[in-house]
């Protein structure tokens, strides 16, 4: 999908990808890609929908902090600008964080790295450990204590 079809310009899409890489970097120790991984960033952009306006606002703030194209800054400058933006508690920045995290933590590789099977909860469900109801024994010895009325 072309970024423009989703409401982001090519420049915004490039900035978003670079920013995502600073937000959640790849980490071989955990066997995980960064949030700037092509499949993840494509998922972010394809599912922006009602969050597009806020994400564009956050990216505009990023460009302003960068004094131009964020994607073209050198690594040290870009990281400093990214962290300044992310330290803001403004709603557009929180929305941007949410959409990146939403796509990141449903990526198969990331989900597997957490020891879980990727996919929708239904119809697989989960098996719960058996309950040890003897934990209730001390409570069962109590007299009723609700107030009679």
């Amino acid at each position, binding site marked *: 999908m072309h970024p423009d079809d989703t409401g982001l310009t090519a420049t915004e899409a490039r900035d978003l990808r670079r920013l995502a890489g600073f*937000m959640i970097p790849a980490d071989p120790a955990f066997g995980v890609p960064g949030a700037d991984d092509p499949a993840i960033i494509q998922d972010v952009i394809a599912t922006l929908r009602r969050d597009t306006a806020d994400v564009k606002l956050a990216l505009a703030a990023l460009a302003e902090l960068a004094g131009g194209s964020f994607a073209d800054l050198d690594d040290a400058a870009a990281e400093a600008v990214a962290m300044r933006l992310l330290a803001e508690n403004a709603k557009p920045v929180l929305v941007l964080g949410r959409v990146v995290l939403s796509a990141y933590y449903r990526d198969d590789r990331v989900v597997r790295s*957490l020891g879980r099977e990727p996919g*929708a*909860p239904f119809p697989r*469900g989960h098996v719960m450990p058996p*309950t*040890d109801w003897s934990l209730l024994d001390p409570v069962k010895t109590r007299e009723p*204590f*609700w107030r009679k*009325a």
Partner: protein
Amino acid sequence: MTITHDTVDVLIIGAGASGAVMAWSLADTRMRILCLEQGDWMKPTDYPANGRDWEARRMTDWEIHPSRRARETDYPVNDDNSVMKVANFCGVGGGTVFWTAHFPRLHPSDFRVKSLDGVAEDWPISYWDLAPWFEQNDRFFGVAGLPGDPGVPDRNPPMPPVPLGRTGAAYARAMNRLGWHWWPSDIAIATEEYEGRAKCINLGHCTPGCAQGAKSGADITYWPAAIRAGVELRTRCRVREITTNDQGMASGVIYYDFEGNEHFQPAEVVILACNGVGTPRILLNSTSGRFPNGLANSSGLVGRNLMLHPWPQVRGYVEEEMDADRGPMTSIWSKQFYETDPSRGFLRGYTLQFARGTGPVTEAVQGAAAGAIPWGPGHHAAFRRHFAHRLVVGIACDDLPEEHNRVTLDPVLTDSHGIPAPKIDYTLSANTAAMMEHGIARATEILEATGATGITTSRTLLNSPGHLLGTCRMGTDPERSVVNPWGRSHDVKNLFIVDGSIWVTGGGVNPTSTIQALALYIADQMKQRLATLFD
């Protein structure tokens, strides 16, 4: 042009928890019963748990706040001037589509707060008036739980409780260490096959619709039975106002269909079941020369005494792995601090409600917003310390009525049909604030007893339980209440209200079990009085 329909005997507005109960219970009278609902029938295949984006949807088209969810079938609510936010769902089943299904009842003492504690007002009915209807509702709705709880009156849930899991067991051990009461919660989830409903498979993420159909809701229990018994349910019909005739009786309603066409639906009896925000909104929108301040409002109490259940949450993280998003969200409750003990510095009390954790997206989003999970190189290690290690104790505080807490009509905001939207004004009383702090301190002790660290508290803003109560309260005195002890408006004798708005006090529990028992009780009272209903 207004489309006018044939007169029905009974018109119910709202197909949620209480509207469904009324439709089903009144069906055996063989009257012609119609329900108008602004939302749609929900399809389990549309629920988030079917897709990989299940957690993200909780923050978009399955948001709990109607203004942010903003479906065509929602109406906006202005709650800028409220410390608590509104949560609801509009569709067949109402809030029982989008709910957690925790199913405690009010306690006997909740109906007698004035006599026992000298606060607010007593209800005009008692727990014991509702007792048979609680039991009937538990059986029909399908409730899991365990008899024998010393913290509440006897009840007989028809199915065994939901599993404790690792999280529930961690809480239970801590509570035993502290010597405090706990018990498996009553939850309206099928823990075994029940009346054609499939058994829970621990999908987790129960609140925004159960794809398995194990979580109970009015759409999959009362509605199919009511429709089989001859009740008509029209969806995508949004009621603007209730009309009245020369005798001051309700004559029907004006509503808009999904294409925006205006309809007049005449009726002999009108029953409001639109919840504690939707119901006063319709009454306040139903003005006329005879009822300039809205219908059924001679007391001036329509919209007042709004109760929303302040619900602080205390969160912490333990070393060992917990359930995270696996299994029904709640597993146990504690009634240790429910009944009044004046030495605590406040009157009335609260239920402690113990939750499991969340899925990875929710943990990451909340952790990042709180600054607990940083951006950058430290992100992964911090995330792994949090995800699947979370414990959360909710404090369901009693909410007492105060007239300044209220629903009015917003002067500017409207829904997509141009109908004025509700505006909420709500503050916390000193008693509630003291109760909250007491609960937060106890919940903190519990988490410490589990060995949790990183304990934080979220006080009110984000924890909107969707309990909308009190805005048309019941009573014997027409100057101090909107409806009589069996739900009939004091002013308009063929107008009934059956949803959470008729509550007199809030209690410290989730309300739906009591809302439905009360609706069953009112339906029974109406059936016993059919010949003299308007006297």
